[in-house]
């Protein structure tokens, strides 16, 4: 024990030094970011204000947080790392198996009854925001995540311009519906076809690229599409966007207060909520279609070829697989689902502009796929709920204004929280929430495959 005391003291010195250094770095970073603030005063003159108490509070919080981490969490982590692997897995595995079996039916059941629950809780006028902002908004991103999952998760082709196909779908619907007056149900497949055509068009020049290089070219493609939408004013109306896009009808019955509207036809009192609920079930059906097709495709030769392509392209070619076609189908099918989602988006909003299709959208969708675990549909859905639902929840946190003052806007901290979430994920689950791969076929028993064996498209291959 004699030797232990000084070493502990030495350790505590180190810990305090570490915390002090962290606080210093935080101070340095936050001084320009938080310490100074520009405000326009009554005479419309820009003046510099200082916020030193807040700066000091934040710096202290960082320092104390670091101290707490070094004193409590990191020893616990070390103990956890050195602890021998217990014989617990069998029971834990059973629990996971049961949870896994019931999770999907339960989740689908929940999303189907979700509007009813909300209606029962909030009434017909209060439910719109909950169904629209949480239900529809999240489901659009779930669908986009599942679509991108085909390209990135299964085929291993890193696509940073996925939002371009979403934009093509949205503008296809908007322009064709406004110009020719086609109905939503005709334009939905048409928008999907046009998007997958653009997917093929992007696919051709990038066939030889992989990893980082592919990412750069797809990023550029996304920007090209956005630039065209901005600058081709004659067709797209530029920045001003397209408004007055026809809304989808209930198989020909419009959702309005007219005599031939939905409410009147079915003998109901008019409420805007009917349209919202209809749109909710529409996007739910589209998202489930995406999931169903993806599950089917994984068990078809083309899906296995995508995964084989992600694992080893040269081996694929040695087995007679046409890798060109295989990559193009991945691009085209992924783009098709983005096109469906895009035309739904245009129909739901009634107004679209290039602002909705910025790189940030691509990044959000890719973040959903990566956080969820590439290739895992459940993981992607959970990540979409966390990221998009999280943003929406920030809008609802009005009580924070009572604490931080009326100027406080929690949504301003969205990116900060995303960043924090990303850092935490990279430490705890660097390969996403659900990382184990489920084999597409089995002889005796379906064993899930450990993530370290499965290749990721994001990693540039060192050999070959």
């Amino acid at each position, binding site marked *: 024990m004699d030797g232990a005391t000084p070493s502990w003291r030495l350790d505590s010195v180190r810990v305090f030094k570490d915390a002090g250094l962290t606080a210093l770095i935080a101070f340095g970073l936050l001084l320009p970011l938080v310490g100074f603030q520009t405000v326009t005063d009554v005479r419309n003159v820009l003046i510099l204000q200082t916020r030193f108490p807040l700066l000091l509070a934040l710096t202290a919080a960082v320092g104390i947080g670091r101290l707490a981490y070094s004193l409590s969490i990191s020893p616990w982590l070390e103990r956890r790392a050195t602890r021998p692997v217990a014989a617990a897995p069998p029971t834990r595995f059973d629990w996971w198996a049961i949870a896994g079996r019931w999770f999907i039916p339960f989740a689908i059941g929940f999303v189907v009854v979700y509007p009813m629950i909300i209606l029962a809780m909030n009434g017909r006028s209060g439910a719109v925001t909950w169904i629209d902002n949480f239900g529809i908004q999240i489901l659009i991103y779930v669908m986009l995540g599942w679509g991108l999952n085909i390209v990135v998760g299964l085929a291993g082709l890193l696509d940073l311009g996925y939002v371009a196909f979403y934009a093509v779908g949205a503008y296809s619907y908007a322009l064709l519906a406004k110009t020719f007056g086609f109905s939503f149900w005709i334009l939905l497949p048409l928008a999907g076809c046009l998007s997958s055509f653009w997917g093929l068009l992007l696919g051709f020049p990038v066939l030889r690229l992989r990893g980082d290089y592919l990412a750069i070219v797809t990023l550029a493609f996304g920007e090209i599409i956005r630039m065209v939408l901005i600058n081709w004013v004659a067709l797209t109306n530029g920045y001003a966007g397209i408004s007055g896009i026809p809304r989808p009808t209930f198989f020909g019955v419009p959702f309005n207060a007219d005599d031939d509207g939905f409410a009147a036809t079915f003998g109901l009192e008019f409420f805007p909520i009917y349209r919202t609920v209809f749109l909710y079930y529409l996007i739910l059906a589209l998202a489930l279609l995406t999931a169903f*097709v993806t599950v*089917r*495709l994984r068990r*078809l*030769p*083309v899906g*296995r*070829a995508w*995964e*084989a392509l992600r*694992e*080893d392209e*040269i*081996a*694929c*070619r*040695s*087995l*007679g*697989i*046409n*890798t060109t076609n295989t990559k193009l*189908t991945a691009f085209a099918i992924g783009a098709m689902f983005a096109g469906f989602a895009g035309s739904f988006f245009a129909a739901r909003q009634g107004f679209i502009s290039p602002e909705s299709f910025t790189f940030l959208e691509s990044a959000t969708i890719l973040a959903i796929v990566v956080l969820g675990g590439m290739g895992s549909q459940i993981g992607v859905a959970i990540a979409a709920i966390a990221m998009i639902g999280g943003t929406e929840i920030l809008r609802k946190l009005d009580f924070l204004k009572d604490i931080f003052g009326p100027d406080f806007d929690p949504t301003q901290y969205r990116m900060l929280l995303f960043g924090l979430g990303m850092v935490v994920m990279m430490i705890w689950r660097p390969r996403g929430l659900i990382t184990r*791969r489920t*084999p*597409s*076929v*089995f*002889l*005796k*028993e*379906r*064993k899930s*495959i*450990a993530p370290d*064996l*499965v*290749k990721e498209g994001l990693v540039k291959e060192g*050999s070959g």
Partner: protein
Amino acid sequence: MAAGGDTLLRVEHLTMRFGGLIAIDDLSFEAHKGEITALIGPNGAGKTTVFNCITGFYKPHTGRIGLCHSEPALWSELDALTGSGRRSIKKPGGALFQLERMPDFLVADEARVARTFQNIRLFPGMTALENLLVAQHNRLMLASGYTLLGIFGIPSYRAAERAAIDKARDWLDRIGLLARADDPAGDLPYGDQRRLEIARAMCTDPVLLCLDEPAAGLNPRESADLNKLLLSIRSECAISILLIEHDMSVVMEISDRVVVLDYGVKIADGTPAQIRSDTKVIAAYLGVADQDVAKVEAEVGL
């Protein structure tokens, strides 16, 4: 089975350069139906380059590589095929291919030349069974109506998939990996991965199987098992094997014919017994006494 089987593969005047380095220099040899042909030579002799040319991964600078399916009479049309600029002649009885004109995946798919790699290239994150199903991709693709019909789960696709699984199961049984069918390929021991890669190549129904150092890294018992496997493949599946190997216990025991390369040049071609006593081969592998260097160099042509 002595020499004299029909010619399956004919490599003529093959030359491949990488910048200033001539990896293969005017190489010609033949492989016969139902035979095991070994390609040996010291490190850097250009063996793997020959494989890459045959399987379409490299395009040779000069020379042609002919491959004939089941109708030896078609060989007489090889010059006509070369002149026509086409890739292949297909007749009801057989087909003739010019492999150097075909992209790699068509060499595997149409000309039915399968290969394995020196550094194993399995799909590590997929199970052993999935690896063997990916090898049957083109047949299953056709059965699934190029995916369109397969999405709706038509019965004919399900039957085709069952047949593919049965075939994979047979091969897993043959290489002794049936118990590990549902384990990821990356988890298998090294020797098992080698055998699985051979089984995967066999699942493409090849007429010619090209094995790049299948015995590398195997212990003597595993090498002996590999010999048995290769001999059984040759006799039961009636296919030809082209083999690159450094392990002489494998080469001398199972090959019907050995081609020796040194610095991209063929220095010997014959039965294992002939090769064993060939002075040029011995010189290439073991070197020669100082006073003989000039004589041997003149003989080898350096």
